[in-house]
């Protein structure tokens, strides 16, 4: 028996009976969400719809194994797993509008998905400022980007990377493995200054330099000009011009929420604002992952991270929220980055700090503890996995 259509224009009350759950997105949050929905016993219609052309995969490997190794894209679900759980996966289908009163998501091909509960796990897209967007300038976020970036690493004698964050850093490391000369451009005075502070950022820069990467900090890349098929000129704010064969831009990402503006959903900048249990401003619509900005009771503020680990947990929390279960989401943030022979690891939530204590033996082997009022709030290590594990557990315990 089908549910009768509502009177057009009249908002429906919250559906007591959940028959259809729709998840928009194709990353770790979307994957974990649909898996958790089934794990919680929901047997109704469950659809994951993504603009990506392949099912959810380990995005963190794109700038690691997938570049320097010959590792295949690591799909999150083994073959047949979604079918076995009766999860409908729609690939290459972009969501273009949310009609909240009618409880429909409209796709680019004109079809609509009706929902009783909707989870938005749409992630984001790399920022590419127009002045830098010459033809062939590369970014890295999705599986399709790997081939072009790897080609650039293989054929470039000189590669310029704009942005010395984790994407830029990992690609710089991969490029040296291909024998490329690399110039890494960073607008701040050290890489990762806002996230890690001046001293640790300095160590990150030192590691790059020790591997032969030219690091230019404190200068913005103003323009990239394609040089008639013979490479590029990158113009810096200090007037310098760099000639190179390839350019990769890693200066951050922007949540994929432009399509939601007409829905009236409350946005915080470009991110979707939610309460502590993934609820957006629209009834029965939830958000999780890189696209979201959620209320944290513990911190008394809205939080936003772009971390693989948080996204998966967030998707699972959104599943619980969508099915009416307790779904508080307030993890201790964790991220990592593999560059050269160094594993960097971070745990904690420390948008600011009073002091950083660094101990160690140089850029490839150190521990940095970030404290507020004498209390440990964050830890960042290089090649110290056991110590990291211990300090991270301390942070988790003190957060509980």
């Amino acid at each position, binding site marked *: 028996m089908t549910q009768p259509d509502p009177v057009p224009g009249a908002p429906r009350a919250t559906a007591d009976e959940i028959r259809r759950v729709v998840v928009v997105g194709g990353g770790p949050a979307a*994957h*974990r969400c649909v*898996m958790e929905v089934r794990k919680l016993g929901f047997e109704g219609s469950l659809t994951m719809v993504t603009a990506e052309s392949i099912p959810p995969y*380990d995005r*963190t*490997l794109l700038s690691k*194994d997938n570049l320097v190794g010959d*590792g295949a894209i*690591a799909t*999150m*679900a*083994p073959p047949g*797993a979604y079918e076995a759980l009766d999860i409908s996966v729609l690939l290459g289908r972009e969501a273009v509008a949310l009609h909240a009163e009618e409880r429909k998501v409209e796709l680019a091909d004109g079809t609509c998905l009706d929902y009783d509960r909707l989870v938005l796990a749409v992630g984001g897209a790399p920022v590419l400022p127009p002045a830098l967007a010459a033809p062939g300038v590369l970014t890295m976020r999705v599986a399709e980007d790997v081939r072009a970036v790897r080609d650039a690493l293989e054929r470039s004698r000189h590669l310029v990377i704009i942005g010395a964050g984790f994407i830029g850093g990992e690609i710089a490391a991969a490029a040296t493995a291909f024998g490329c000369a690399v110039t890494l451009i960073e607008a701040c005075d050290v890489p990762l200054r806002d996230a890690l502070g001046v001293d640790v950022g300095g160590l990150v820069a030192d590691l790059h330099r020790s591997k032969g990467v030219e690091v230019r900090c404190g200068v913005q890349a103003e323009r990239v000009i394609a040089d008639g098929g013979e490479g590029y000129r990158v113009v810096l704010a200090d007037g310098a011009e760099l000639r190179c064969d390839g350019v990769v831009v890693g200066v951050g990402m922007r949540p994929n929420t432009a399509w939601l503006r007409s829905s009236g959903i409350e946005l915080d900048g470009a991110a979707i604002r939610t309460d502590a249990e993934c609820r957006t401003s629209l009834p029965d619509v939830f958000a999780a992952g890189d696209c979201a900005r959620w209320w944290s009771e513990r911190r008394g503020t809205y939080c936003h991270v772009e971390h*693989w*680990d948080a996204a*998966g947990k967030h998707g699972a929390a959104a599943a619980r929220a969508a099915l009416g279960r307790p779904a508080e989401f307030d993890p201790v943030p*964790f991220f*990592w980055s593999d560059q050269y022979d160094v*594993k960097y*690891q971070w*745990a904690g939530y420390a948008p600011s700090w009073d002091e950083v204590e660094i101990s160690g033996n140089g850029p490839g082997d150190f521990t940095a503890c970030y404290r507020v009022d004498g209390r440990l709030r964050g830890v960042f290590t290089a090649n110290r*996995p*056991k110590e*990291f*594990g*211990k300090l*991270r557990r301390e942070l988790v315990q003190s957060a509980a």
Partner: protein
Amino acid sequence: MTLRVSIDRDLCIGSGNCVHLSQGAIELDEYDVAEVRDVGAATPEQLRMAQRSCPTSAIVIDES
């Protein structure tokens, strides 16, 4: 070929990538630390992929 798989509990942060990639061979225990439950439940390729995906390199595979 059955691989020998072990988890370094000091390194594991409970991200759970392995749980999804290993199709039941690895699960998180009540402390959110990964443990090998049934190594035969996953193919060697799935276990190697789980090892590559582990953010803390906590999965040790003995292929000898």
